[in-house]
C-alpha cells in the first residue's frame, strides 16, 4: 500500500494494474446483493439498511456510487420476484441435546 505519491523512477515502486470495470459492474454487484438478500427473506428497509451502513463496504460503496434511487429500484426489482418466496423451515424430529455430564451427579453414588 503506497504511503506517498508514486516515484516513477524508483524501480521498487509498486506497479499498478488496471482492472477492467465500469459503472455496470457496480450495478451488477448491487443487483447481486439485492437478489441474494431478498432471497433470504429480508424486507425493503432491511436490504436498504445494509446498503446504507458503512460497515458493509461492498454494498455501501455501491450505494454511494449509484445513489439511493438506483439502489431502491434494484431492491424493488428483486423484491418483486423474491418476496413471493417466504421460506418456512420445519425442523425434523429431534431427540434433543444430550447432557454434557461435566459434573458428578450428587444423587449418584
Amino acid at each position: 500500500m503506497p504511503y506517498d505519491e508514486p516515484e516513477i523512477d524508483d524501480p521498487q515502486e509498486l506497479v499498478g494494474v488496471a482492472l477492467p470495470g465500469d459503472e455496470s459492474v457496480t450495478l451488477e454487484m448491487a443487483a447481486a446483493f439485492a437478489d441474494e438478500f431478498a432471497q433470504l427473506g429480508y424486507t425493503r428497509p432491511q436490504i436498504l439498511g445494509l446498503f446504507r451502513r458503512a460497515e458493509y463496504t461492498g454494498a455501501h460503496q455501491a450505494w454511494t456510487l449509484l445513489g439511493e434511487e438506483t439502489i431502491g429500484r434494484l431492491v424493488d426489482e428483486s423484491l418483486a420476484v423474491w418476496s413471493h418466496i417466504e421460506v418456512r423451515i420445519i425442523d425434523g424430529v429431534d431427540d434433543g441435546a444430550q447432557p454434557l455430564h461435566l459434573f458428578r451427579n450428587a444423587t449418584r453414588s
Partner: protein
Amino acid sequence: MATVKNWQLGRDMAYPYDARYPTRQFAFVFNINRCIACQSCTMACKSTWTFNKGQEHMWWANVETKPYGGYPKWWDAKILEKLEDANPGGQVWGGKVGDGRVGPYGTFEGQTIFEAAQKTLSPDSARVLGYLPTDEEWNSPNIYEDNPAGKRGVRNKLDETGEQLPVHNTWFFYLARICNHCTYPACLAACPRKAIYKRPEDGIVLLDQSECRGYRKCVEACPYKKSMYRGNTRTSEKCIACFPRVEGTDPETGGEPMETRCMSACIGQIRMQGLVKIAEDGSWAEDRQHPLYFLVHVAKVALPLYPQFGTQPNGYYIPPRWVARPYLRQMFGPGVDRAIANYVNPSRELLGVLQLFRRSNRIIYRYEIQEGPKIYDGSLHGRKVELYNDTVIAFGKSGREIFRTTVEEPVHVRTNAHANSI
C-alpha cells in the same frame, strides 16, 4: 515422486507420496455472491480455536477483499508469480470444459507446485514450490482493505477517527477462506517429520503437535497459507475442521455430524459443508442426491480455488457474478463462465438446493425435492424467472430428516430450545 490422478486438472500429476483416499472427504461450498464480509465466521473460529497467547496472528478462517487484499498479504499473487517464473507462459489450461466427473474444466497444461519444485528447487528434499511469508505479511489481516487507512505519507499509523476509508473505484469481492483439506496436501508433502496426516474417515488434514518440531516447511509449502507457526510453542498449527463437531461428538446433536463453527456462524447463509463419497481414483463418487455433489458436478456452479496449484482442494466457490471474467478464470479455472451462467439462470433443482444453505447446523448427506405448483412467472433484471412451491427435504447421516423447507408460508420462529443453534 509418485504419480497420482487429479480430477480437477484432468490429468495425472507428480506427488511425493502414493495416493491414499478417504472413504468420505470433508468439503464445502461458499456462495461468494452473498458474502458481505461481516467476519462472523472469522470470529467464530478465532474465539473457539485461536484465542491463546502465541496465536494472536492466527486466523484459521478469514475473509479478505479481492483483489486488493489477502491474508497473509499477497499470498496468491506471490505463489502465482513463482509458478509463472518457473514455467513462463506455460501456466495455461487446454482442452474443453466438459461434463465428465474427471477433467470437467479441461486439462491443465502448466506445472503444479509439486512439478515446478522438481524442476526448479534443490536439494531434492525440497518437494513443494512455496515461500515463507514475512511477519509483516501475517500481522495485519484486512489492513488497508476496507478498514480506515492511515493518512497519506504517515507510515504505520491508522486514521484514529476512522473517517478516511479506502475507496475501490471498480469491482471487488469478499473471499472467505479456511484450510481446503486438500486431497494432495502440500503441507503434508513438505513435512520432514511426517507430522501431518489425512484422516481416512473424513479426509480432514491434521498436524500432530507431538511430532512437529516447527521447521515451518508446511507454512512454506501450503499455497493457500493456511498452516501457521506459533512462536511460543515452536510448532505449527492449522485448521482442524472442527473435527469433534464433524465426528458428531457435540452433545447437541446426539451423534449426528455437525458443521464447523465458521459454517454455523455464517449469517449471510453463504456456506454449506458436507462429507462427500470418494471413488477409488480420488474423484467424487457419484452421489446424485448429495447437495455438494449436485452443486459441483451436476449444476456445476461451484468451483475449486486455484485448482492449478495441484493440491486438489476441497473448498468450492460459487463465483461472484459481477467480477471480470479473466480474474475469475485465473482464480477458479475455465469453468467460471458456465458456473455463472448456471447460477444466474438457475434450474428448478438448483433453486431448491440453494434453500438448504444454513437451515441447520447438522451435516446434510442427502436431499429430496417434492415438486409443488408454480407460484411466479416473470422476469428479473431482464432474465426469465419461474418459482415453484417445492418442498426441499434434508437428511442426515442416520437417514433421518433434519429439516424441510417450503415456500409461501409464514416465517417459522424457532422455539427457545433451538434459539441458539450455532
